[in-house]
């Protein structure tokens, strides 16, 4: 009887609660974006797609690439912006084919000085990726 009642009334809300808690954990400890992952954090920050990725002090740009390469790189950078995990960074560095033992990865996010209507950027995440 208890199990039946749980399935009827509490199973879906419990799943929602657990997914949202997991997302908040990932946001707080793994730099995941609040916009994605079922935690209802939309509009709390500027959308991560507006962030910038710089590798060894150079902006990662899709300009001057073929259409296909541009799309591939765009997807890889978006993944890093949403969740800069080691796995995503590795995929990006491998795609860029950087021949260095270690690379500095920086993600900058937009920032506002609202009082003076000034738009600027600030460091959101920084890591040094060491290639195997």
């Amino acid at each position, binding site marked *: 009887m208890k199990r039946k009642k749980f399935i009827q009334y509490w199973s879906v*809300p419990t799943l929602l609660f657990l997914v949202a808690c997991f997302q908040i954990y990932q946001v707080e400890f793994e730099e995941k974006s609040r916009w994605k992952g079922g935690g209802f*954090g939309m509009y709390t920050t500027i959308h991560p797609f507006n962030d910038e990725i710089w590798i060894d002090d150079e902006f990662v740009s899709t300009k001057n690439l073929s259409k296909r390469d541009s799309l591939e790189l765009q997807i890889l950078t978006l993944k890093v912006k949403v969740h800069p995990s080691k796995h995503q960074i590795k995929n990006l560095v491998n795609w860029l084919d950087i021949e260095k033992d270690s690379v500095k990865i920086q993600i900058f996010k937009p920032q506002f000085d609202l009082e003076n209507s000034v738009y600027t950027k600030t460091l959101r995440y920084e890591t040094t990726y060491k290639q195997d």
Partner: protein
Amino acid sequence: MKQLINRINQIPIFKLVATCFLLFLAIYSPRLKAIYVTYLVFAALAYVIIDRDFFKKTYFWLIVLGLLIPRLYASFLFIGNHYFVMIYMILLFLIVSFYQDNAEKIFSRNATVILVLIMGFAVLQKLLVPDYLNGTSLAYLGYSGKIFKYVFYFNEEYRDIFYENAVKMSELYKYPISENPRVQLEPIFKNFPQVIIWFSYLTLIAEILFIVALFIKKQWIKHGFIIFFLLSLLVTREETGFLSMLCILLMMHIEKQNTLYRAAYLGIFILCLSLIIVGKGEL
């Protein structure tokens, strides 16, 4: 009008919300960027024409759930909250298809808790982020004209300012942080920054009041506030996709038959759906 409301209320709640959800899914699916879902959802709609009691069939909801799982796995990083809510709703339909005698009560209780959790987490996340309370996140949208669209976008002068601001913001990437890049934006009127901060706090308060409203006994106060909340959201953010799902959940939330409010939520749902069809709104 009274006749129309009566007719809406005569439709069994399970059939009403299931039909609304399926319509939403059909219209939403082309934007999922998983074209197979569109074909399969239209196949499901064709099935609905053959079998009017589609919503009572457990296997039907299992198939619909099966349509969405591959994308959940393949694009987990990019999946936003809308997609998760869609999956929770399908799971709810699946459960109700097992326990149909108790449909109204199961829908009502689940919808209430789901709405409380959605708004509760939205409030919690806003409180956790200094960027929200200092207005940064909404300033970005405000200065580029992505919120208050229907309020300010009719003025050509404002539109030009929004456009120029958006162009300036998109060029920030050209400058390394060592150069301390700064872009001077133009507010559309003198107190615009204050309006942004007030709006951030107002949104937070409105979301808390939404949770409180769900438990208010006086129906006209409760639904009056919620309808005002939904329409404000539509005007300021054009969140037509998420609003459509909130409307379905609110239709579920109303347990009693013969109510004007179920018809009101259905009306807002149809409005949102129409806006999605004509390409308006964020999903």
